[in-house]
């Protein structure tokens, strides 16, 4: 640590001189070698010390706490599912969890641990392999930041500063030490920026091997980033903006022929759009291929999807294709993650409409999901003979649905539904299959001709309550405890809603010939699309749980409130995800300072108020890279204001990395400018002292706040005798 600082101080004088020289060489891969030849040693030293330190900090106490921390309960569990090949559902794309699963598999973990809840002891489970994967990727972030800044600023000092900020941030450190998606995501975001920067450095030699190589790598990392979490989209936008800007520049170059331009355009389409899209899809293919066993995620998916899962009751079954009267069926709500129409011998409690038997939607398979389909017969007609040919159900028919287990009919009437008070209540009513006229439902198949028949799985139908004209409906609202927290089923007077569509899933009728369910199996494309719809819906349904503290985006940059990872009381080792406040507030300061500075500089430049041409050129370079970093920060931060789903503090960390890089370049440049304007005779005085001070502050603050990441034991910080009392700078920190 100290060695690195000494070297900075020793070398920055000479380096500063060189940096202020206008750069004339064409940008190329070996630029570092020619330009900073004198500092090659310094560069290597700074880089390697940053790798070593990063490794040391991230791997120190990696095995503690030896219990499940925070979201490890999700991602560890999902890793195990991959090892067991059990199907599950998650709102994020699969790559991150597949990598965790792979790391677990390679390190000899057998997937048997349940990761039940935070705090469960690992005992002799081999969890370290998965943590090592995350920590390794977390370690790599620091050197990548170094390299990006080096490419963009040509300054070892700026690069060291930026990587120092990332290195000594307690938040980034904590986030890298556990089985989470975030270190993996941050790595791929930073890696795609790095690959982009390398690609741009080959600007002058298009269509050479390295040019292609780095562009392909950019595409690869982008695909990985978005295959971990959808917020990877922001880095895609960032790269897209850079590429568009790049192309716009090429367009003005009249020396390039139209054909060359077209080649440039197509090459980018291929490497940055088609190739990543293909990768993204293939990750899903691998995901769907691995998870071929029925598991906890089945109920979220359609009947056709489920039939592909080994162990699911729809796997390799055969059933009659066309639904007829006398069939026993289950009805599945035809929306993503829709439940099966269900009833059970419990009554609606007092105050929730009529006290009749509850009807709900239930995601899991159960005897109580079975319904018998009966024909509505007008009473004055003579009852036909018992033996009659099997009659198929047709579009527009009037039917009864009898609940098989309780022999009551599906019923609706003019009472308020329990949760959606402007809908009608749906109940089960009657005795031994006879009820009243309110039990009559009309089958409607939207878009089909009158008289069309109902096929299992494929036909989407609506059930219209014949007397009141409302339509059987279910959505993702859960009933309270009296309804076993199953989904609410109502009769919706507004029939346009897509959630009013149902399909027949199981079908039993011994009068009809069985066909194999194979024909209903979703193809890969269908499965892919369905997964996306379910994920998107899952994401928008992520609302804060009752009593949960929600985090607002404005709180993030000011480090307002962290996230508790482990430990509540004073006997446990407590880990708290919180940024190093000195770094975060410093970053925020420079982030806020940058726009006015660049505004003033632009005004001066445009009005020709600048003297030294060397400074002008350096400014131009620095401010252009800083502006791009500012854009990167904004793209990774501002969209969260538009999201209605529940947000957490750790969503800010990708944006934080961009702001660290911005600060590194900006601080270095400000110090240079101060030197240039205030002390032109003694080049480097400000910079030297400034760097010493900054490094000292950063390291001191890291030393002070390291218990956030490595664990705090003893009394809570609120208590008088706590050793961590001095760490509680804000009242909102729960340490």
């Amino acid at each position, binding site marked *: 640590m100290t060695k690195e600082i000494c070297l900075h101080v020793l070398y920055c004088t000479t380096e500063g001189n060189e940096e202020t020289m206008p750069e004339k060489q064409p940008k190329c891969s070996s630029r570092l070698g020619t330009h900073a030849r004198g500092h090659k040693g310094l560069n290597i030293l700074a880089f390697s010390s940053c790798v070593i330190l990063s490794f040391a900090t991230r791997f120190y106490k990696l095995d503690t706490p030896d219990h499940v921390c925070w979201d490890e309960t999700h991602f560890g569990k999902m890793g195990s599912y991959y090892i067991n090949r059990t199907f599950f559902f998650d709102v994020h794309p699969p790559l991150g969890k597949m990598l965790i699963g792979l790391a677990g598999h390679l390190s000899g973990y057998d997937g048997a641990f349940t990761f039940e809840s935070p705090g469960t002891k690992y005992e002799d489970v081999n969890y370290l392999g998965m943590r090592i994967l995350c920590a390794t990727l977390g370690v790599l972030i620091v050197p990548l930041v170094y390299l990006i800044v080096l490419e963009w600023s040509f300054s070892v000092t700026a690069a060291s500063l930026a990587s120092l900020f990332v290195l000594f941030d307690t938040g980034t450190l904590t986030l890298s030490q556990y089985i989470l998606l975030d270190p993996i995501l941050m790595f791929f975001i930073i890696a795609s920026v790095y690959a982009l920067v390398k690609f741009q450095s080959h600007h002058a030699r298009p269509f050479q091997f390295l040019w292609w190589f780095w562009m392909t790598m950019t595409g690869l990392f982008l695909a990985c980033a978005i295959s971990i979490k959808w917020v990877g989209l922001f880095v895609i936008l960032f790269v897209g903006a850079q590429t568009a800007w790049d192309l*716009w520049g090429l*367009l*003005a170059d*009249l020396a390039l022929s139209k054909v060359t331009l077209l080649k440039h355009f197509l090459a980018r389409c291929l490497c940055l759009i088609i190739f990543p899209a293909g990768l993204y899809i293939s990750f899903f293919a691998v995901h769907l291929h691995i998870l071929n066993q029925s598991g906890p995620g089945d109920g979220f998916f359609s009947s056709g999807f489920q039939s592909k899962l080994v162990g699911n009751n729809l796997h390799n079954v055969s059933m009659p294709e066309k639904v007829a009267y006398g069939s026993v069926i289950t009805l599945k709500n035809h929306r993503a993650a829709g439940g099966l129409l269900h009833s059970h011998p419990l009554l609606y*409690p*007092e*105050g929730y409409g009529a006290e009749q038997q509850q009807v709900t939607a239930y995601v899991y398979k159960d005897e109580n999901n079975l319904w018998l389909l009966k024909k509505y017969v007008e009473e004055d007609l003579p009852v036909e003979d018992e033996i009659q040919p099997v009659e198929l159900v047709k579009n527009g028919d009037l039917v009864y649905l009898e609940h098989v287990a309780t022999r009551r009919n599906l019923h609706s009437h003019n009472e308020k539904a329990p949760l*959606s008070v*402007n809908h009608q209540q749906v109940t089960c009513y009657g005795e031994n299959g006879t009820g009243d006229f309110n039990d009559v439902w009309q089958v409607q198949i939207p878009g089909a001709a009158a008289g069309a028949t109902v096929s299992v799985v494929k036909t989407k139908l609506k059930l219209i309550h014949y007397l009141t004209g409302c339509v059987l409906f279910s959505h993702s609202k859960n009933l309270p*405890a*009296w309804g076993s927290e199953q989904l609410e089923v109502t009769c*919706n*007077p*507004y029939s*346009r809603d897509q959630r009013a569509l149902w399909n027949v899933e199981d079908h039993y009728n011994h009068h009809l010939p069985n066909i194999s369910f194979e024909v209903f199996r979703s193809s890969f494309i269908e499965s892919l699309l369905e997964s996306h719809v379910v994920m998107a819906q899952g994401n928008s349904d992520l609302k804060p749980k*009752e*009593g949960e*503290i929600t985090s607002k985006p404005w709180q993030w940059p000011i480090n307002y409130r962290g996230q508790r990872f482990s430990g509540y009381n004073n006997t446990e080792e407590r880990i708290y995800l919180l940024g190093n406040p000195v770094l975060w507030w410093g970053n925020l300061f420079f982030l806020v300072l940058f726009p006015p500075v660049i505004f003033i500089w*632009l*005004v001066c430049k*445009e*009005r*020709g108020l600048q003297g030294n041409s060397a400074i002008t050129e350096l400014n131009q370079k620095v401010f252009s890279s800083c502006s791009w970093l500012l854009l990167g920060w904004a793209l990774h931060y501002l969209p969260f204001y*538009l999201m*209605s789903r529940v947000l957490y503090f750790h969503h800010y960390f990708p944006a934080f990395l961009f702001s660290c890089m911005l600060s590194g370049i900006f601080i270095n440049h400000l110090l240079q400018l101060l030197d240039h304007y205030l002390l032109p005779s003694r080049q480097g005085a400000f910079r030297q002292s400034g760097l010493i001070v900054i490094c000292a502050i950063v390291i001191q603050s890291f030393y002070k706040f390291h218990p956030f990441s490595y664990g705090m034991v003893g009394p809570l910080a609120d208590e008088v005798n706590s050793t961590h009392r001095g760490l509680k700078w804000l009242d*909102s920190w729960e340490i």
Partner: protein
Amino acid sequence: MLLVYVVCNEFVLRTLNEMACDHISDNGEANKKMKQTANRTEPIFVVNCSLDLLLVAITLIAFVTRLWRLEDPRGVVFDEIHFGRFAGLYLQGVFFFDVHPPLGRLLITLMGYLSGFDGNFDFSIIGTEYPCSFPIWHLRLIPAVCGSLLCPLAYLILSELGFHQYSACLAAFLVLTDNALLTQSRFILIDSMLLLSLLAMIYSLLKFLKYFKRPFSLYGSAWATVLSLSITASLSVKYSGLFSVLLVSLVLLFYSWRMIIDKTIPLIQVAVRLLGYALFFVVLPVVLYCLIFWLHLSLLWKSGTHDEMMSSSFQATLEGGLARITEGQPRRIAYSSQITLRHTHGTPCWLHSHSDPYPVRYSDNRGSSAQQQVTCYSYKDINNWWIVVEQDADSIDLNSPPKPVKDGDIIKLIHGVTGRSLNSHDVAAPMSPQCMEVSCYVDYNISFPAQPLWRVELLNGAKTNQTWQAMSSHIRLIHVTTNQALKFTGNQLPDWGFYQYEVATDRIHQQEATVWNVEEHRLSAAATSQDHQLPPDIWSPGNLGFWEKFLEVQMKMLWANSDVNQEHQYSSSALEWPTMNRGVAYWISPDSNAQIHFLGNPVTWVSGLVAAVLFFLMFVTLAVRWRRQCQDLTPDEWTRLILSAVLLVGGWVFNLVPYMLMERTLFLHHYLPGLLHLLILLPVTVEMMYRYVLFRSSIQRNVMTAVLLVWLTSVFLAFVRLLPLSYGHTSLTEEDIKSLQWRESWGFIYREEFK
């Protein structure tokens, strides 16, 4: 008349402007002086008047279509139920709360006032017949006039952007023949006012930018004033005007930036001009906006049905209602004070207790303390009264001198009717298990100690000298033993709690749900009768200033806007709008199948989408060609093209995309601002096709003209075909309705009984 005035005005101003230009010092450019002298030879006090007959004709037709049989139907149509009622309430002075800012309603009210309407009409159901004395024509006049003026403004905007007169006419024609714009202009609704201010904003911006190079000119300042007024109007009719205001501000910022970096303008002038812009486009609109709210609040001085939504101190400023109840009550809370505690933010309710205990076991098998329930009750009740007692007092001492309670004091609260003290303990609350239960302590003698101490935390103590005051003080009650704050959780208790709201304590103090304030307050009779009274300190209603009231209403409006989320039969999502998937049924005749259904002109709407795509493609192609040094357009043409792109395409996008991100109930008429921009963009695209794509061959142009003519006819036919649904004057048969149902998703109403 108005038009002649506008045109004349323009010329007068132009002449004046030329004069003004002379005053700007011009350092010796000979040719310019020549030009000035040439100007001067013309007589200056002569008004040159020209009349654009086309414009007059357009305006006349617009007025005829919008004003024709304006008083029909004589029934409450759609949202007239709201805006009509609001006008009535204004005229009666009764307070109400609405999510829209007041300008639109005030204008309607003005017409009601002029026509002598006394505000006495019950707008409760859509379709209610207006009595003969009801001035429906007057109330509908302002929206209709605003809607009519859209046509000439569309014409003027395109002329100002430098497009051909044909294009300008086409724009006016499209606006004229859009059924949605027609329908929305004919009733007591505020949308047409918003649309007018949006177009006025664009037009005045264009005019202002035209004179941008000649600062301090009379003409420029006059248009700056108009721009500033229309910005105010856009924001004070409906908040959705904000999107367009943002767009206009971006254009203004861009021009300011160009001015800042323009070397030919001295820095002093830059500073003065920037200051001027800030004055015109920030200060003036803000001042006017506040003035409108001042008018709004001073018109509404009586208490009404929406009182409960507002804070206690706000309610007390309204005559009748709470002000009457609390009149003359003492201000400072002292020990032995009797008080009611209101939950300050959100659902109004009062801290309440009654002799029923919590059930021993809840339905999910958790246990309770079985002590007396404490709830939050939405009605005024004798059980809402509590007595403030010192922490070490054993009993209520009504004879002690009234000692005021200060910030940080520790108190007990005794329930007035049952005499038990407010208590909390480490037992999970009934509906929110993560919070602790609050009860009135019953001593069951089972070694379960009472924990009745609460610390008073004043949130706005600085204003009241750190003493706890009725009405104005917002407080938190922190339970001393557990350090948790008394909270309204928002959950309703089941039958055993009489469906009242749950009250619990939460470890997080900083939330709105933990804020309470005293509403009613009495000192005990003993304390007031004796000599050791506090100095006369009577709370008086109305000591809430305009700014406090304004801020409270403003905050409530912003929050309420995001809460409107209910299903509706005719609601639609923003994605469905451009293709007009779903209209809105506005009104149906009580005695036939005549109906008004809000729908646009489908031909125009779809062509608008096509035009937007074509425009985008042409724009990108031209930009790429420009980058490759192909000089298709002069710099001046570029400026105009970019302005059209920013204002029209930008206006469409800015007024459509935000709705896609909103999670509230939306209707097709929310799309009208976006649509209007699209309609004006359409002629621009057509003219660009002629100018830059088809300029080589006259055959192509002739074909294009023929296609255009056919298209125009179909636009007109579609308009005429859907007219019965816009005016609602013809009764329709089943066949008529079926033949109009061009899309399955359009939900026209058909009732069997009126065949």
